């Protein structure tokens, strides 16, 4: 197997496989020796408004403009989340050049729709390639489907089970969940037009907002376990870790569904803030920092922003980095 592994890696087959199924690994391996900061992001980083934006720079680019002396590298792929960033971060050597790791934290990746998404199989397949094991072993394990490879129907079943049976609770005054499951909540929401007929389009969007944000994060959430692991790995390797909690369209959540949903979003944000602010970790709270009009998708829940939105988020991350750098002995040039 050792000889096979040598041949697999050196004859170019590994590279071909990575190109096709796990393209981020070569970038991490390259950039760890040339960058001080690695930014891990998904589509929120590079999406832009096709007509309104004069600047198409990514969030990570905007952040980097504030620190001309720091070398930034961006690891970027659509739909990635903490579970996929984790094996990539595990591949960064502790003696690499990397000092800061910025990880995008998208709140929706913690909901049931994302956890049981059909995209997960492909993402987990990539993650298998990223794991720190001999390349040929990873390749073989991918062929044997040694990763979360449940079929779409099973994922749907699990998702619906949680939406049907998981109950939402509140101890806050004025906030009560009745109905208290996502399924019942979706079924009861109505948007009658002037003529009394239900507005399906608006209802579908509200329904989607509920499915995306009506959940309560706890320790059992698989993404929390991934995030905890990221914290552990970064602490072991002495990387300074920043979680960039992305902005969500709280304005629309409020107008479509109401204060109960917003309360849940804030509660989840507070949970994350409390869990991930410590000596070696900072969480940048962008949840409510971008106004509804700056989202490029007005009819769906995404974290895609126009240039104003991207700049706002970048500025918040810059502030956190700046404050952190100020506390260290390292003196670097900062542009405000």
């Amino acid at each position, binding site marked *: 197997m050792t000889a096979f592994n040598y041949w697999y890696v050196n004859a170019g087959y590994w590279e071909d496989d990575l190109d096709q199924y796990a393209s981020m690994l070569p970038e991490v391996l390259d950039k760890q020796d040339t960058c001080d900061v690695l930014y891990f992001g998904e589509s929120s980083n590079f999406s832009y408004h096709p007509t309104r934006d004069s600047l198409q720079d990514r969030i990570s680019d905007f952040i980097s403009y504030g620190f001309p002396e720091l070398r930034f590298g961006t690891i970027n792929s659509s739909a990635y989340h903490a579970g996929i960033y984790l094996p990539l971060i595990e591949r960064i050597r502790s003696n690499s050049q990397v000092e800061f790791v910025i990880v995008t934290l998208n709140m929706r990746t913690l909901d049931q729709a994302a956890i049981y998404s059909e995209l997960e199989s492909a993402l987990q397949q990539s993650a298998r390639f990223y794991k720190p094991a001999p390349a040929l072993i990873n390749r*073989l394990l991918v*062929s044997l*489907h040694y990763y979360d490879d449940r079929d779409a129907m099973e994922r749907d079943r699990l998702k619906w089970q949680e939406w*049907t049976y998981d109950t939402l609770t509140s101890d806050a005054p004025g906030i009560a969940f009745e109905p208290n499951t996502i399924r019942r909540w979706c079924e009861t929401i109505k948007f009658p037009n002037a003529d009394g007929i239900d507005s399906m389009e608006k209802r579908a969007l509200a329904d989607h907002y509920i499915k995306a944000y009506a959940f309560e994060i706890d320790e059992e959430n698989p993404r929390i376990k991934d995030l905890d692991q990221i914290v552990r790995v970064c602490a072991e390797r002495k990387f300074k870790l920043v979680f960039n909690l992305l902005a969500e369209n709280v304005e629309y959540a409020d107008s479509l569904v109401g204060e109960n949903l917003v309360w849940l979003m804030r509660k989840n944000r507070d949970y994350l803030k409390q869990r991930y602010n410590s000596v070696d970790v900072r969480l940048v709270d962008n949840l409510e920092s971008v106004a509804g009009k700056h989202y490029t998708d007005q009819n769906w829940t995404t974290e895609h922003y126009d240039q104003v939105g991207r700049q706002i988020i970048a500025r918040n991350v810059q502030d956190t980095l700046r404050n952190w750098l100020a506390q260290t002995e390292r003196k670097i040039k900062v542009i405000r």
Partner: protein
Amino acid sequence: MLFTSVAFLIFLPCVVLLYYLLPARHRWLLLLPASYLFYGWWKVEFLVLILFSTLVDYLVSRSMYQARSMIKRRLLLGVSLLSNLGLLFLFKYVIMFTEKPDPMILNIYSVDHPIMGMIKYGIYYAIPVGISFYTFQTLSYTIDVYFQRIEPEKHFGRFALFVSFFPQLVAGPIERFSHLMPQLKADHRFNYENVRNAFRLMLYGFFIKMCVADNIAPLVDAVYTNPNTYTTLSNWIGTLGFGFQIYADFAGYSLIAQGASLLLGIQLMDNFRTPYLSTNITEFWSRWHISLSTWFRDYLYIPLGGNRVAYGRWVLNILVVFAVSGLWHGADWKFMVWGLIHGAMYLLQRMGKQTGWTRTMPLWLSGLLTFIGVQFAWIFFRIDGMEGVSDHLHNLLHAGTQSLQIPPYVWLIIGFFILSDWILYNTRVDRWIGSKPIWLRWITYAWMLWCIAAWSGVTNHPFIYFQF
């Protein structure tokens, strides 16, 4: 549990080790739970159905054996047929007449009534893997008991093991009681020769499933999903590719099943013998899915009268057998058409033989025509809906501009597969490897291991016959 999974690669050695540590009379106590674990690994719910089938057939066969009146025997046979075929009908054929449910059945905008939606979803969700295989295996048992060809098994546990024996449970070979049960009861000692042959069978099985079938599958999927996009050559590659995919997929599975069983000292019947090298369609059916074709011969064709009937009735018998064998594959009219095409080819060949016009035909030409006919029929088998057939055929002549991207190593693997099929004409891989010098054996092992580790297909394509 999939054969091509890490779980199975851990499960099998554990079972084999414990099997040889146990005395023969207690081995069923290991194999039965192991078989249920293997099957329940997919969904625990599947076990309810297999237990139900097992219990019904056990009780029916015992009562049938003790019954003196013919009417009672027939009634009991009816109960067995009704329960087995009823389950098969419920899970496979009810959906033939209904639309596939919206996977998001709790979607409040679903067209289904919530209750109907739940029922349909439940049926789709719970379609047991390999139900056609174990149903046919138990059917053959009760029919054999009815005709007093065999005595029913007294021991419920051993009978349950006969129904659920894990190597062949979900995709065959469909074994007969008279062949499998004596082996399940026998005292098999650890035999190096058996183990060596088992590894050879399994290695080749893994190779053709993981490297041949799983590398061809994405090409076939691409062409069948968007035939208009691809060039004529790509459409031909995709169309012919499916013939190779399904063969490698199913024959690979059967070889792994045979190998896994042989590790326990139990010989399963051969299910494939290089079918694409057949020189006529009769020979093809004696080489393709042998356990099913012999099942249909013994339990449908002969009871219908076989060839000892008037010519017209014989023609009808042939068409019925092929149509039913098509429908056995699944709840779709396309499978029936596939079966009828084979039936028509069979009749044509027999007519040619009777009238003498095929007598002068060289074997290579007859073989080529058989190959073309079989590949043509696969189009109906693979196509998503009958309405797509004409479009697919049209695209074999006039199509788009995009070419399939096929890595060179895939051609190498396919070439090796064709060559090995040629070599294995009238022999089996374990026997062939065993007859070669040691250096050639180890080069072959190393080549297949390399292919499995580095070049096997990456996209998840479960065994095609699991759905049947």
